[in-house]
């Protein structure tokens, strides 16, 4: 513990004392009011202690599988190793190598037949800055394939990619609606308590040291909508970001 943490902890202690002096009066009033009395209060503590004791065997029976863990080698990995920096999804799209490039995942895919020669891409959920890559096929068969690709998302070396929701694609006539693009991931991380951390041996304990700050610790994967359209189809989008591969404007 450093000096400032220690003094802050002591300041908190002082505040807690004031709060406690207030609550101790309240608790006494509560006990009197609810006729818990001395016997009741004794059982209250015993009950609380029993719950704490019972939690010990339950805790040690929790299996280690199913939790989130850092990928091996994270500690020694160079900056950007776990991120999109090492995987260029845009270049892979342009080179038609999305399925072959390691680190790029196919999140979802849909095929549909377009009745006309114009396709409108719409985002009912609001603004989307997700790039759309479009490749024209050599034929005009009316078949459209829309696929979502993404690079991996990491938090401090923990792969969160499987927590990213697959975007929804709905086709109505000549309109493709893309939704469910917003994702919110909520994680639980335990920190060693102030006192336990004082005696923790960094060489033998597996304490998660926490992220600190910096781009390395939370790496958002890049996502693209990749479409293959018939040669005679025109694309319209209510937002920017449609890029035709191999074509110049």
């Amino acid at each position, binding site marked *: 513990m450093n*000096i400032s943490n*220690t*003094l802050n*902890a*002591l300041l*908190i*202690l002082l505040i807690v*004392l004031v709060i*406690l*002096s207030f*609550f*101790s009066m309240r*608790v006494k009033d509560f*006990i009197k009011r609810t006729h818990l009395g*001395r016997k009741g209060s004794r059982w*209250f*503590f015993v009950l*609380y*202690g029993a719950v*704490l*004791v019972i*939690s010990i065997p339950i*805790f040690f029976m*929790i*299996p280690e*599988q199913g*939790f989130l*863990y850092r990928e091996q080698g994270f500690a020694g990995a160079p900056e950007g190793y776990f991120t999109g920096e090492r995987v260029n999804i845009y270049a892979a799209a342009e080179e038609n190598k999305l399925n072959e490039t390691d680190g790029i995942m196919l999140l979802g895919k849909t095929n549909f037949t377009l009745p006309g020669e114009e396709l409108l891409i719409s985002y009912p959920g609001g603004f989307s*800055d*997700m790039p759309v890559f479009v490749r024209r096929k050599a034929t005009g068969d009316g078949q459209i394939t829309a696929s979502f690709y993404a690079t991996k998302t990491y938090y401090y070396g*923990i792969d*969160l990619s499987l927590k*990213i929701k697959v975007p929804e694609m709905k086709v109505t006539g000549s309109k493709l609606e893309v939704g469910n*693009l*917003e*994702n*919110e*991931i*909520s*994680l*639980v*991380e*335990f*920190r*060693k*308590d*102030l*006192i*336990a951390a*004082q*005696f*923790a041996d960094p060489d033998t*304990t*597996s*304490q*998660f040291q*926490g992220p600190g700050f910096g781009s390395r610790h*939370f790496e*958002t*994967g890049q996502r693209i909508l990749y479409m293959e359209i018939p040669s005679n189809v025109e694309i319209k989008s209510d937002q920017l970001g449609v890029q035709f591969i191999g074509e110049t404007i």
Partner: protein
Amino acid sequence: MSLTETNLLSVTKRQYLYKIKSHMGIFNNLAAAQLIVLLLTSGRSGMMGSGGDGLDLKVLYYSSSWVTIATLGALFYVSIIFAGQVYRNQDFAFVANRLSSNLSNIGFLLTAAVLGGITASLYGVLLRVILFYTRGSSNIIGESFFLTPQDLLSGMAAAVLYGILCSALGYLIGILINQHGKIFLLLIPALFIGTWYLQVVHMGEVSIFTKLILFFVRENSLAIFTFKALVTGAVLFATSIMISNRTEVRS
């Protein structure tokens, strides 16, 4: 003069048992303090949020630090109150002396420190169990979740030792307030806040007060910390007894 032969140990033991029975509410308050912290914080000690590209990440930090602080605060507070006039006068119901009264008080406070330290450490275990069943393992970072029995026991021992230190310090302050008037009620918080303020103003300069705190909090060896805490606790309690023994009659 009493016709009954008594010795210090048996009187102290009787007083101690009486205090444990009659002041059970204090343990109740310790548990209440821990539960209040759980209610107020939901066990959280902080949060980190980050986002971009349609993805928001929220990391909720959990630890038992707040409960440990609240427990130590409660022990400190209880010790001051316990050294006060109201609690001291209860000892006049016994055929006893100042020494047995102090020893039984110290016994009671040590019991409170042990129970407080153990419950504060186990609170972290309970919190983990609750989160495992409410949030699911797929949302919990495994590396920070699991504790070894050694981690748990050393955390417990350290919390108990800090509890003893807080109790011993609180008891001494309580005795000083009791013996030398309310001036200490103002002097001690003023001393603490003043030191904290000077520390902030003169960054980098370490005051004696801070050095005393660092003497304990910078100790990474549990064995040496145990020695330091027990010796300091014993010195503080012994000082309290000596100051208290100067009062010859019921005041």
